[in-house]
């Protein structure tokens, strides 16, 4: 039984945004996937992590279920962002039973929850900057003046949609397919 069936309405879930399926050719062939071929335009794919019990091994294992969520908010959601979902009392579509409530954390742009300072995974950005100044000035990258994420999507950064192994010599070109 899937997670979606067990939950009551107005239940709140934590999840991460996953890349969307943009064409019918991009869906994996053999793996039991979602019920849709192409992700609807008003929705996002969200991976909900939870523990699944294996009756044979008597142990819980990590498992992620992908659900569709209706996004009516103006949050600029990108792949990898952590967010809160809520199960709707009246589903938007039969396959879309969740809606986005709020954004918790941006992917690759973390903040300290206590002080609100910007951090990388290892260090405070302010500390990194201070170290660079001791060594004789910072480099060409400036975090404060860097443009917002998403300007290279589809040209150099191919993480916003699902990538797949090309299984036919298609006439139309798709940059999200791999051949090697």
């Amino acid at each position, binding site marked *: 039984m899937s997670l979606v069936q067990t939950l009551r309405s107005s239940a709140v879930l934590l999840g991460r945004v996953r890349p969307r399926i943009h064409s019918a050719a991009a869906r994996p062939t053999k793996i039991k996937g979602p019920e849709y071929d192409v992700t609807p335009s008003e929705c996002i794919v969200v991976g909900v992590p939870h523990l699944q019990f294996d009756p044979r091994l008597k142990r819980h294992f990590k498992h992620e279920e992908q659900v569709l969520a209706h996004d009516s908010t103006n949050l600029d959601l990108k792949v990898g962002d952590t967010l809160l979902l809520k199960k709707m009392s009246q589903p938007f579509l039969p396959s879309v039973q969740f809606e986005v409530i709020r954004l918790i954390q941006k992917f690759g742009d973390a903040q300290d929850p206590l002080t609100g300072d910007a951090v990388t995974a290892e260090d405070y950005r302010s500390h990194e900057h201070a170290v660079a100044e001791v060594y*004789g*000035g910072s480099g060409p*990258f400036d975090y404060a003046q*860097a443009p917002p994420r998403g300007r290279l999507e589809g040209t*150099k950064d191919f993480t916003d949609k699902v990538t797949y192994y090309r299984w036919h010599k298609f006439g139309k070109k798709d940059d999200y397919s791999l*051949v090697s």
Partner: protein
Amino acid sequence: MAQALLGAKYIKQLAGWAGKSPLANPLGGMDSAASLTGIRQYNHHPDWRREDFIRISSTHLHGKSSEKNRTVEGVSDRQFPIIVQWERPKHPKRALPGAEASGDLEAFPTLDPSRRLPEFEGCQALEEAMDKVQRVFSLEFATRRDLLKRVSHDYARKVQRHPHDFQSLEVFIAILTARIRHAQAFVAKELEEKNRRRGAISHVIKIMVDQRRVLLGVLRQRDYKKFEFLLETLNIAYKPRPIYFEKIEREVHMVRLTELWCSELKQHRLSTLKHEFKSQQPEFLRDKAKKLGWIKAQEEELGLQSSVSQDEIQQCLDEAKRIEDILARQTQEDRMQKLFVYEEEVPVATTSDIAELSSS
């Protein structure tokens, strides 16, 4: 103990059933009790002929089966034409440059021969020395390894955090890209096509490319803006690997292609039908507005309370105009662009058609 004995007796009885023909089985077919106990004797029984249970698979429809001439009840003997031909895509090696393979959108740069190696940069004694000495220390007589040193130093300068930073993740990625491009240029220029070392070096390049993709993924998780800055400055395309590995097989993907083609055919026909109905709507709405106007005029003449308002008539006219605008924007090409495989069939002219055309 008694239970165990009973169980043994019960299993014996089931085995007896299993030995018989499946048609004689009281429980019938595959869902027999024997299959529940795990005894599969009936598979080897002479009465059980495999031919009775062959499913009609796609191979029969495509005519690729070994049993071509077998007749199946309820299925036509005619071999169906293959509408879309499946072709295996070519797989270039991951070591080659380009967005499809290694992700390098730029080749190894050609260097100015008057430049020096990084260790002699800013050396005062060299600048004061004779021209011949300066020439000896320039890149004019440099080996390939020296060139690599020069370029990797240049790449590191573009991304480093401070002038003494040579250990951070982004600098390591920059040095790796220099090494990859250097090796790619060597394979392309220096080695012949059938050289033995070509395969070995391209294998090493593949390892480096994979390592760089992993490191880029780590940087992406830590600092997305710096990851984008790195892609832009070093001119790399980042494509993550698919989650599931998929083997490219003839039969599986031929079936998938025909399924995709059929679904797109359905989609195309429905959309053309919808377009046809939609194009009839403005005319109908204008006619409706005209008739409503007539009703309104008649009611006013007879002095009755009017059941039609002016807003209702205007609404119909506005709606007709809106639909016409939408239809003008949509073209046949736009609708065809959404489809991946399906192409509209061009009717083939017969000999009689050609004769008619030539006579007229």
